[in-house]
């Protein structure tokens, strides 16, 4: 902190802006490559090979590596992005112009804002202190994520409404109802986690994501401690990110393209990237809360040294877990069929919500009972 005080204001702002840009770059790259992963994994699961033609001219000629990268379709996101950029910009005549242009931005901003409070590793100082790597260490980090991600629904609702056409409108209406329903279950599924982490004897400050990660250091991952919470959170996460089996807002087969039916070129691209950014952030949050963040395996001390090498390995391990979860998202998408809309609603309100409540009650009683000897 002494370091901060010695700097000028503009220097602090410049450093923060630089870090933010790096973070945005990382998340956007991951989102872009999630699109590629989606195409590749879906292809593999259907007995196809997926995109394997795009290649940069000079890389193609490197023996062995060139054809391998080409076969993996590593350069496909580049081509996709350029395609979105250079497509003809078509604005239908019947749309409400202001909101039509505003909607993709509103969809993307919350997706990117949630990452400010996301811890993804730790830095060891010379004195042995551990400083978490994140943009802003907020005491109420998880609430911040819930709050900001709940704003993401406006992008979809506005897109549906401003398009002035039936299918996008239905998509927008569906998504707003769905998001409200599943936010409740999501919030309730997280409460037992905080009860568990903040029990007396462990020095923990309230709702911080960093503390949740630390509580899983050399002890059980929370996914094994509270499997039901993890399950409910996972299902709600699928619903919040509009992924199959809950992709009501854009169910291709019954709503054409849902809320983005009337969108083309780069505006559609922004929606697309926002969706995948949501998935990336969602996976990262699940990793942080339930899968021990950057810590190695349950009950095991981190095998890496407490130096900068350790920090890098920790971040890599965190990324590996996140990528595994992204794969899980894609895997589920290409396995399950879509729910009917009324089934989604009844699952949310009559199954998940009571289940989350019962789960909460159970852990309230359990934690109270466990804390008895302490008092």
């Amino acid at each position: 902190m002494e370091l901060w005080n010695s700097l000028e204001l503009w220097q602090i702002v410049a450093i923060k802006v630089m870090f933010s840009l790096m973070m945005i770059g990382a998340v956007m790259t991951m989102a872009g490559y999630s699109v590629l992963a989606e195409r590749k994994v879906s292809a593999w699961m259907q007995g196809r090979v997926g995109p394997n033609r795009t290649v940069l001219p000079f890389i193609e000629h490197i023996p062995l590596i060139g054809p391998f990268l080409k076969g993996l379709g590593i350069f496909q996101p580049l081509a996709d992005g350029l395609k979105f950029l250079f497509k003809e910009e078509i604005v239908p005549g019947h749309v409400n112009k202001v909101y039509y242009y505003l909607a993709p931005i509103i969809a993307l901003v919350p997706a990117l804002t949630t990452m400010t409070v996301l811890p993804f590793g730790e830095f060891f100082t010379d004195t042995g202190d551990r400083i978490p790597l994140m943009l802003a260490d907020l005491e109420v980090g998880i609430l911040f994520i819930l709050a900001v991600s709940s704003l993401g629904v406006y992008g979809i609702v506005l897109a549906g409404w401003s398009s002035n056409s039936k299918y996008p409108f239905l998509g927008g209406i569906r998504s707003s109802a769905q998001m409200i329903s599943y936010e409740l279950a999501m919030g309730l599924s997280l409460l037992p986690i905080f009860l568990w982490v903040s029990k007396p004897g462990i020095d923990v400050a309230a709702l911080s994501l960093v503390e949740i990660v630390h509580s899983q250091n050399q002890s059980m991952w929370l996914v094994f401690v509270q499997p039901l919470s993890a399950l409910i959170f996972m299902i709600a996460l699928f619903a919040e990110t509009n992924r199959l089996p809950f992709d009501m807002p854009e169910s291709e087969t019954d709503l054409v393209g849902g809320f983005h039916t009337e969108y083309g070129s780069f505006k559609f691209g922004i929606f697309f990237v926002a969706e995948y950014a949501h998935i990336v952030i969602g996976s990262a949050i699940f990793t942080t809360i339930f899968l021990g963040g950057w810590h190695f395996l349950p009950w095991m001390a981190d095998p890496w040294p407490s130096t900068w090498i350790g920090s890098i390995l920790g971040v890599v391990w965190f990324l590996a877990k996140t990528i595994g979860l992204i794969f899980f998202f894609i895997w589920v998408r290409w396995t399950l069929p879509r729910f009917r809309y009324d089934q989604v609603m009844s699952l949310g309100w009559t199954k998940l919500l009571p289940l989350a409540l019962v789960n909460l009650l159970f852990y309230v009683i359990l934690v109270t009972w466990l804390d008895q000897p302490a008092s």
Partner: protein
Amino acid sequence: MNLIDFLFLVFATLSVGGGLLMIFSRHPVSAALFMIVSMVSVAGLFVLLESFFLAILQVLVYAGAVMVLFLFIIMLLDVGPEGAKSSKIKLLSGLAGIVCFGILVVFSLILVLNSVPDCSSCAGWPSLDDRNLVLGESLVFSTSVKSFGFGLFSKYMLPIQVAGFLLLAAMVGVIILSKKFVRESSLS
């Protein structure tokens, strides 16, 4: 002018401007969106006060949930832009608005001018002492989440239960009002 002052001006302008635009916009959807802008800016003001928890609750509850429902209902009912009302109602509502605004300005001016600047606690809020909280004595004001929790579940337990009960009553009332009852005899 330092950064905080600048940000305060930005958020204050946004919240007041959003509120005004909400009142004056003809289309309900625009009005709802300006209301969201206003609410998020108020959350920004809370952040400037270092009261992160309140800011987040503001966004989570009002902008994230209540306004989504507002928009949902507006879109579901497909309320179009409000047509021109008769000049009499316009005049009346305009007058009422001006009078209310005048009263507000006068009262706030009186409050501001009468308040004595007291800088004994300008050094910042006292940090939270857990021991005080557990004993339930001398609840100090603090922005930390814990103090909210302790406050709500100890000193303000009764008000919170009453408020919850009122909300429940409102909810049950809405269900009863909106549900169509069918007589049992007509069912069989």
